[in-house]
């Protein structure tokens, strides 16, 4: 469009535009944010698709994530091998899903994966307990945590199998229309 940038080839930029919900300028801005986390690790030129992965500690120290109780799960869900270390593609994917243009189903899918701590495609009681503890800074008694988790499963479990599947979670979202605007990180 006039400004000659040498970070990505035009094909790469178009591919990024197609696969995320960002414009060219936003993708470049996100690249600079990614690079600012570790200027010595990230090369300024991505045309030859280097294989660079930033460790979780750097991602978790970003101002948008550092106070979020679920930052570790977010990084784990969007990283390739589930350990929290992210490449540039993972980074763009993460903020694309968390942007305001992502559709409800996509956000529901990823929110479900974030709250599924043991990665078994179901949110079971132990996952819920961990979630409640993160939401309340461990300030509730174990008895209260157990009661809340039981209540959540009672109210949200449609197919009565004692744990929440993705469909139960999507049903829960219908009752909380704020979800689309709260599951959103502005970058």
């Amino acid at each position, binding site marked *: 469009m006039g400004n000659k940038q040498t970070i990505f080839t035009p094909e790469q930029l178009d591919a990024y*535009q197609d696969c995320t919900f960002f414009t060219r300028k936003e993708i470049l801005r996100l690249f600079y944010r990614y690079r600012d986390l570790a200027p010595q690790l990230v090369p300024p030129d991505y045309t030859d698709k280097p294989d660079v992965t930033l460790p979780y500690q750097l991602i978790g120290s970003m101002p948008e994530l550092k106070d979020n109780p679920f930052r570790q799960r977010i990084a784990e869900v969007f990283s390739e091998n589930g350990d929290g270390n992210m490449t540039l593609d993972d980074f763009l994917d993460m903020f694309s899903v968390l942007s305001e243009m992502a559709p409800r189903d996509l956000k529901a899918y990823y929110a479900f994966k974030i709250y599924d701590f043991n990665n078994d495609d179901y949110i079971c009681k132990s996952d819920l307990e961990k979630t409640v503890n993160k939401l309340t800074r461990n300030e509730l008694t174990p008895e209260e945590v157990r009661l809340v988790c039981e209540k959540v499963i009672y*109210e949200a479990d449609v197919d009565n199998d004692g744990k929440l599947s993705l469909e139960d979670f999507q049903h829960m979202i219908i009752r909380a229309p704020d979800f689309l605007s709260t599951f959103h990180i502005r970058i």
Partner: protein
Amino acid sequence: IAKESRSHSSQLSCCPQCLQRTSFRRFGNSLSEYFHLLQLSHKILKIIGAKFGTSVLSYFIFLKWLLAFNIFSFVINFSFITVPQFVAAEPNNLSFTGLELFTGAGYFQETVLYYGFYSNATISKTEKGPSYNMQLAYFFTVGIYFVICFLILLFSMAKSFCRNFINPQIVSGIASKLLCVWDFNITNEKAVKLKQKNIIMQIKEDLAEVNQEVLNFSATERVVHIVIHLVCWVASLGTAVAACAGVYFLSINNLKVFVKEHKNDLKSQAAMLVLPIIASLLNAFIPFFYSWLGHLERFQTPGYQIYVTIARNTILKISIVGILCYYWLNIVAASESQCWETLVGQDIYRLVLVDFIFCLLGSFFGEFLRRIIGTTVCVNLGLPEFDIGRNVLDLIYAQTLTWIGILFSPLLPGIQMISFSIIFYVKKVSLMMNCQPPRKVWRTAQMATSFMLLLFFPSFLGVLSLFSHTFRLKPSEECGPFRGLSSMYDAVSEWMKILENYTASKWVVWIYHNLITSEFFFFILSVIVLIITYLYWQITEGRKTVTKFLKKQIINGVKEKRFLLEKLWVLQRRNQNPSAPRGQGQQVSLIVQVLLFQLNAWYDFMGFL
């Protein structure tokens, strides 16, 4: 993203339907990169969302949206009405004193700001060159702007309803949406801690089942409650009526003063400001009375209290605007003044300006002084919270005034544009300096949809019905683009008469006579719309029944699955038992096959669902 291995997430992001729309998206992306202003507000919204969360953010997003309406209107009016008028402008003989900025009269009376200045001629720069019919331009510019606004509002409202699935069952505890409650926008440490405390409080309330207490009131207590509710409603409606009566008598007085004494000195000009100041004072202080009434009545849920307070405030504002419109259209239009449209335009200008000043003052007193009082004198009060409901209603009121004023003062959206931008920055600074994040639950999606409903129904449709009445009034004889006609609408009828003489445009005349002015056509249209609405309503009812049935089926299906699997397991164990006789083994394998077939059929049925 090009790699196959990171398949699942990229498959979801690059779904086939999305790829079809990429060309549109790329075009939209390159367009939006030209709007640098969007990036500036993006940063501000991020800061606000980080500290205060989504609920307060919704106010600023609403303000930005209304600002877009005003920018659009100003651009259209300026290019189609004002610029041609500059070509045929008459010289302005009045002198400019600073007071015109407040009163809108004086020098401004003979400028493009008001309806009265526009000529009714067909302007052409050269003899026999292309001509520009100011009458039709004025009429159609305003008309087409409102049609476009109507469509935009309608689609936004429909999209909001669709996304948010407004469920009338408002009362439900936090447990039913615990996994959706965390606000990822909040990135400030203190705000995060506050939100977590909020969640703890909601969980404890839910576990204690405070909301679901079966309130067994005795008969007398119920009667007392109903009487209190009635008294409060009567009090609020009574204050609204009293406010309207006060505004009405004040405005009649205003007109008498203006028509009788045409002096342009300081005293009479200051007298013109009394009406807007009183109207704004009423709008500013009566809501406090209403929230006090709300505290008096003990509602079952706090959400219900918010809705009732907003309803009362809306009734107050709509009645004040309504009484002013009645005064303008029935009294000022029939008065002996030279140019009643300009008078109305000036009144609206003053109202908009004073409302803007009161908004800034409200921010100063309500937030800045309240913070100083809360931190030094009376420390129990603490920092103030941002009152989202009251601020959004103020915005809707200002936008209603602007929409009413577009016909009488075409550049009013430009003034409102500037005022909204200033309000945006002032509210943002006041918020960051003075307020604390909200402690109570505010259902953002539902409230945003309700506010859009309020903007559409009383506000916009009210303005539309006002215009349909205005178009039938007799315009002033001596000023404005419709002078000499018997109603503003006659401009179109006369144009149709001219068009009849040209064969090329006979279809336009046909459409006009048979579709737009024919009542029979609109009757048929209304009947068709009612039929379609009724059919859709019945389809929705049917779908509700199907949903209930399917939910039961899911539960039954899981039970059946468990039952079949248990049977299968038992039979397989028996089959493996070598002491079982041969014949029974064949029987068992047959039963196993039947059960497996049933299980497959069940899975097919589930897949079909």
